[in-house]
């Protein structure tokens, strides 16, 4: 085995991305879907940090981006949970497939 390089990070991120997408597409529980989103966001972070480390020495763009994404993920999670609670209060479930009143 050679040293661990950019490709390895990218592959890990890609796998994470795919699992995140898979989770988003299959989970019925709203929180589950959000966890999928978090996975994708984390894959993004891995990408950013890895690219920054390997491709952009001397500049911090990727690192900062990753930091922002973390904050963003937190904000999104907070809001998402609030909206899920609202959903639960009205429909007594957080299974998203119960919400099919708006359609057509």
């Amino acid at each position: 085995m050679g040293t661990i390089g950019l490709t390895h990070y990218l592959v890990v991120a890609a796998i994470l991305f795919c699992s995140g997408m898979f989770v988003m597409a299959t989970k019925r529980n709203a929180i589950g879907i959000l966890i999928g989103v978090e996975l994708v966001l984390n894959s993004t972070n891995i990408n950013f940090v890895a690219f920054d480390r390997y491709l952009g020495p001397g500049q911090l763009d990727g690192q900062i981006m990753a930091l922002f994404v973390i904050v963003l993920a937190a904000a999104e999670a907070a809001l998402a949970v609030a909206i899920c609670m609202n959903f639960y209060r009205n429909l007594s479930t957080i299974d998203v497939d119960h919400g099919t009143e708006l359609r057509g």
Partner: protein
Amino acid sequence: MSVETLKLCGILILLAPLIGAILAGALGRPVLRGNTHWIVIAGVAVAFALSVVVFGVVRGAADGAHAVQIPLYDWFTSGSGWFKVEFLIDPLTSIMLLTVTGVSLLVIIYSRDYMREHDKPVRGYERFFAFLGLFVFSMCALVLGGNFLLLYLGWEAVGLCSYLLIGFYYDRPSAAAAAKKAFLVNRVGDFGFGLGILLIYLTFGTLEYQAVFDMVQGGVLASGEPIATGRITTIALLLLCGACGKSAQLPLHVWLPDAMEGPSPVSALIHAATMVTAGVYMVARCGAIFTASPIAMTVVAVIGACTALFAATIALTQTDLKRILAYSTISQLGYMFLGLGVYAADSAVFHLFTHAFFKALLFLCAGSVMHAMGGIIDARYFGGLRKLLPWTFRFFVIGSLALAGFPFLSGFFSKDEIIHHAFEAHWLFGLVGLATAVLTAFYTARMVCLAFFGPERVPEGVHAHESGKWMLAPLGVLSIGAIFAGYLGVEMFGQGFHNFLGPVFHDTFGVHYSVVSAPGAAHAVAAAAHTGFLANYGLMILSGGLAIVAIAAAYFMYVLQPWIPGTIASAVPRLHRLFSNKYYIDEAYDAAVVRPLRMTGRVSVGLDNYFLDGLVWLATAIPRGLAFVLRGLQGGLIQGYAVSMIIGIIILALVVFFAER
């Protein structure tokens, strides 16, 4: 000429009534209510004041600079060129502006009281004033516009206002029908008009007045090709078609008498003084096109002469005051067309100018009578109102005398000029003009006699009363105009009107005279002044005398010996029936056009319901079917959305992938 001043004035003349109308429409009902008239009066007054300024500037212009084309801005770009918003200001424009805004102002002031019952504004008071403001705006736009496109827009806009105002009492079936009729008949004319403008664009590649007229007069297109006379004639006849519709000439005159269903101020303003003269204005404005085609000029003259005589004969037998006036308007418009057709455009415009005063006066007086009679205007139901409505009576008599061509009132001078020129063109035209003059004097006097002389009769339960000062003041102003406006064109007083207008027509209508009559003189009247007293004044004396005789005859027949008319009517029953049924033209149209159309309509409805609807149903079946599928896709399930989206992305990615490989 100060172009900047004119530009500013032009813009403000348009904006002031428009803003008035918008404010009246927007704030009328919630805020202003019974005071709505003020805002429109203010707008139109500003427009009038500025028209005076424009007149002053145009009058003060140096020789040879009588017309300015003022571009405002580029409006729209189409395939090959720009359409501009531009003004053309010349003496003709300024005369029209003065007439339009002046009469409008008086009529709107008059409407303040007219549109009230027991001092309470009638329903739709705000709407009425908003529409009037809109009309003034449209008419000014029509007159100011510097190209055919703006002319057309103004033309349609005044038609729309006319439609809205004829149908003002929309809950009255007759008013709604009249509005519809006016609209449809005008459509027929406007169709030709639109085609004519299209043809102008196709022929000359531009719609700008000056450019088109220059090409017509030069006889070559911008590309250097000569213009076929046949093309010019076609254009002129198509334009004339529009003019016939708008100015109620044969055979499209049928809408105007019915249009009297609108409120009287509307009849006075739109259907007597201003809008109906748009056709005259248009022909005068397009003099270059019309004079380039002798055929078209002959057609104009023939239509004018026929209409003048024909409408006058109908007016003889009508009893509804407003209808008499309507036919009289048609007849007078016929005079104007006759004037145009015999190359006397300045006389035609002069007649337009004087006619605006006395005909608006007559209509407003009729409105005053109607107001007093509780909405009844048919002279069979009242009579001898001379004591009851003293002021209205006086003004009405002034207007009537002016219309009848009583010597030394405005109508006398302007009508005489046209007859004079008609005789110069062809004795037949002159004779028709003279005959019409006699008829005019007769039916006018008859109308006055029926309404104001004889024993006093008022309809049951009507408390007749003289109108208030809001209504009488405009009448007074108009009657001053009806008496004195004619002197502007009289040669003894310097012929100011004709000298002012002269340069506009110098190269078009005027050319004819410089060839036909005395060399060096652009105006036949001026030319005639050199040819001796009798040749010059003979006709004047003759027509004046005939008018007086006709008036006396009418007085004799209808006041002193009221049995005579009935006897005559029974002596020639067919003729009488022909006249009083307006030559059965409405019936003929009904049989020849309306019924077949209605039949076609029924067939079409059947086709539409069973065949076309089926086709439409079939055509929409595809989208509807697709919609059904799509609605399935939008199933409300977020998971479904996510999967669809991801599939979508994958498909897009694949498309890119295969596009690249």
